[in-house]
């Protein structure tokens, strides 16, 4: 029952924060809840609860392989959130802080959801919780981004509900008695009605793929990431996408069990390659460094799908990549937030010479760039290498080659933007920088820690995590 605390603690903290009367001290709820959540998550990672799990919610191997990464990212973001919200003291955070906390609780619930309906409810609730986070800046641009997020995300989530119903009907048609837990559906296996399973797979992939930000359903992403505060961008890119990926994996395991695994792998591979390609092409023309991060996120979601499509070692590498993605995206978004605040602009036309104005954040941003483009010795290098290797080993040579070309193009695109803003002479606008912004330890340490974690993951992947990922792979493909 300890695992339910992962959901309850943040939700209770959210309620308490909503009632807390002081704007100045309210942000401290974030690191407090984040710390408690991280302790719980890592405690459960060390001592996983014994099976059998509750039918609807449970800290099963899949949740164990993913949730601690989100918890760690949240802790980093919440530590950064305190100084960030102090800088924004003029805005009330009465909605922001509770919504951020509630999002954590609901993300935990979505990771642990073992029932088709519960999974949908939790994912939808996460989407709704992030709405007030997106328009925290209250600018017209922020509302425009929020509207697109709601409309595209809402339609996606509606289609995933339709997909869930179709999967339910597949079970009913195959003689099921209405057991919509993933365990029950997988046990029914070949008994599921095949046409309905395929319809469900397409709808669910489109639905949860929208949430993940796979191309061509990624259109909300650049706007939302560009307009949201840095900590929100980091949580969306490293946490919410992980939720959606977990959902896709759970559904895919059912499709696999129903004997349509080949179709599922093929669609995942195609959509993954398309995402990396689209992201790479957009990165080559990106001018705004926060929108650039969104396209980088699209690219990494593509990488995850490719890993999942390859299966076996590839899937294992995808879990590894989830962790790397969360840590590096956290470091990048937080340092980008610092640069954005000091520079007063966001495109390479407005910003340059940040290595002189914010030397520490700029250095971090460059280091993060190398991490996210999979340069050794950072974690993403090892996970992507493993995905490429397993793709070659399973006869996906052509796909792996295309994938490598996309990675190279993305590398060009990212370095172009990052070096344009870091080097050169500072612009006039930036010299009159936000007088309240200083590169204090509080805004530097969280991204540094996240980046170091990415380094550690690459150089010395803890055996505990290796074992957790193996267990998750076994849960999803019991034959292996």
């Amino acid at each position, binding site marked *: 029952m300890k695992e339910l605390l992962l959901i309850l603690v943040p939700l209770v903290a959210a309620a308490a924060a909503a009632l807390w009367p002081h704007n100045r001290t309210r942000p401290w709820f974030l690191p407090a809840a984040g710390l408690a959540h991280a302790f719980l998550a890592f405690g459960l990672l060390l001592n996983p609860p014994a099976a059998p799990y509750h039918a609807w919610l449970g800290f099963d191997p899949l949740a164990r392989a993913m949730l601690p990464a989100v918890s760690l990212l949240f802790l980093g973001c919440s530590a950064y959130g305190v100084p960030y919200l102090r800088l924004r003291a003029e805005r009330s955070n009465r909605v922001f802080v509770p919504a951020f906390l509630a999002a954590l609780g609901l993300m935990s619930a979505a990771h642990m959801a073992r029932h088709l*309906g519960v999974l949908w409810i939790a994912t939808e609730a996460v989407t709704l919780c992030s709405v007030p986070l997106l328009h925290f800046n209250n600018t017209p641009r922020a509302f425009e981004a929020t*509207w697109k997020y709601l409309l595209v995300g809402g339609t996606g989530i509606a289609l995933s509900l339709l997909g869930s119903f*179709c999967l*339910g009907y597949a079970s*009913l048609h195959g003689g099921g008695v209405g057991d919509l837990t993933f365990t029950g559906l997988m046990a029914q296996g070949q008994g599921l009605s095949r046409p309905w399973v395929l319809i469900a797979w397409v709808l669910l992939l489109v639905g949860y793929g929208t949430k993940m930000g796979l191309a061509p359903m990624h259109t909300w992403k650049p*706007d939302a990431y560009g307009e949201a505060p840095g900590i929100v961008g980091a949580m969306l890119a490293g946490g919410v996408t992980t939720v959606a990926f977990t959902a896709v994996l759970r559904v895919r395991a059912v499709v696999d069990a129903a004997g349509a695994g080949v179709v599922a792998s093929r669609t995942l591979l195609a959509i993954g390659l398309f995402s990396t390609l689209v992201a790479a092409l957009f990165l080559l023309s990106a001018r705004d460094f926060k929108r650039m991060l969104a396209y980088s996120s699209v690219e990494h979601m593509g990488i995850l799908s490719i890993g999942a499509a390859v299966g076996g070692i590839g899937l294992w590498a995808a879990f590894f990549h989830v962790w790397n993605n969360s840590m590096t995206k956290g470091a990048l978004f937080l340092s980008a937030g610092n640069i954005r605040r000091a520079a007063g602009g966001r495109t390479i036309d407005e910003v340059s010479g940040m290595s002189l104005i914010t030397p520490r954040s700029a250095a971090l941003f460059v280091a993060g760039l190398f991490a996210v483009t999979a340069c050794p010795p950072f974690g993403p290098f090892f996970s992507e290498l493993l995905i490429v290797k397993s793709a070659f080993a399973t006869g996906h040579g052509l796909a792996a080659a295309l994938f490598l070309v996309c990675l190279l193009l993305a590398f060009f695109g990212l370095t172009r933007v990052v070096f344009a803003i870091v080097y050169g002479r500072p612009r006039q606008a930036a010299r009159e920088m936000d007088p309240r912004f200083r590169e204090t330890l509080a805004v530097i340490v969280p991204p540094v820690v996240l980046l170091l974690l990415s380094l550690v993951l690459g150089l010395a992947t803890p055996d505990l995590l290796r074992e957790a990922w193996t267990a998750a792979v076994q849960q999803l493909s019991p034959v292996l």
Partner: protein
Amino acid sequence: MNGLLNLLIGLAMGLNLVALGTSRLPSLIRVAALQGVVLGIMPLVIEQEFRGLLLVVAAATMAMKGLVIPALLRRAMRTANIDRDLYPLIGFVPSLLLGAAGMMGAVVLARRLPLLPEHHESLLVAGAMASVFTGLLLLIGRSKAISQVCGYLILENGIYLFGLLLIHSVPLLVEGGILLDLTVAVFVIGIIVDRIQRAFDTLDTRKLTVLRE
């Protein structure tokens, strides 16, 4: 039972066409609301028994879809003081033709899908697909934020229709959760509509073009 149910589904499908053909915002809201009420009656027709929880869910659906959400949209429309005419991106006649074609396609497709014996005579699948298609058409083809919300509502109604196939297998708790989520979704959309109006002085989403590549 199937006769009455099919009559209601046919009514809902007819309302889809009305929604596509209407040129006025208030009547679009009214159509979406009426469709919601028609949908709310269906679980009672299917179950033909009046258990407490079922009654609560049906009543809540009708109240939400038929009263609360339309009232919210009307309020947004009034405070925003917007022009009541819809400026379609896809014209009314093309939308109607597309909608009719989609409806026929849905009926044909539903016949070809494997269904349980008790659903063979029912229009549920066809109605669901037609409503989903109508909803998507309205989402793409209308430019006002509120009319897009109506499109979203009709899309949701289609999904609800499909959900009725599973009425015996989805626990009511989950069903209630889904209903709650959808309601909150529309509430949140309503609030954002209000903010967009204040920030941009318009609810024409064609004006939301600052962010683009």
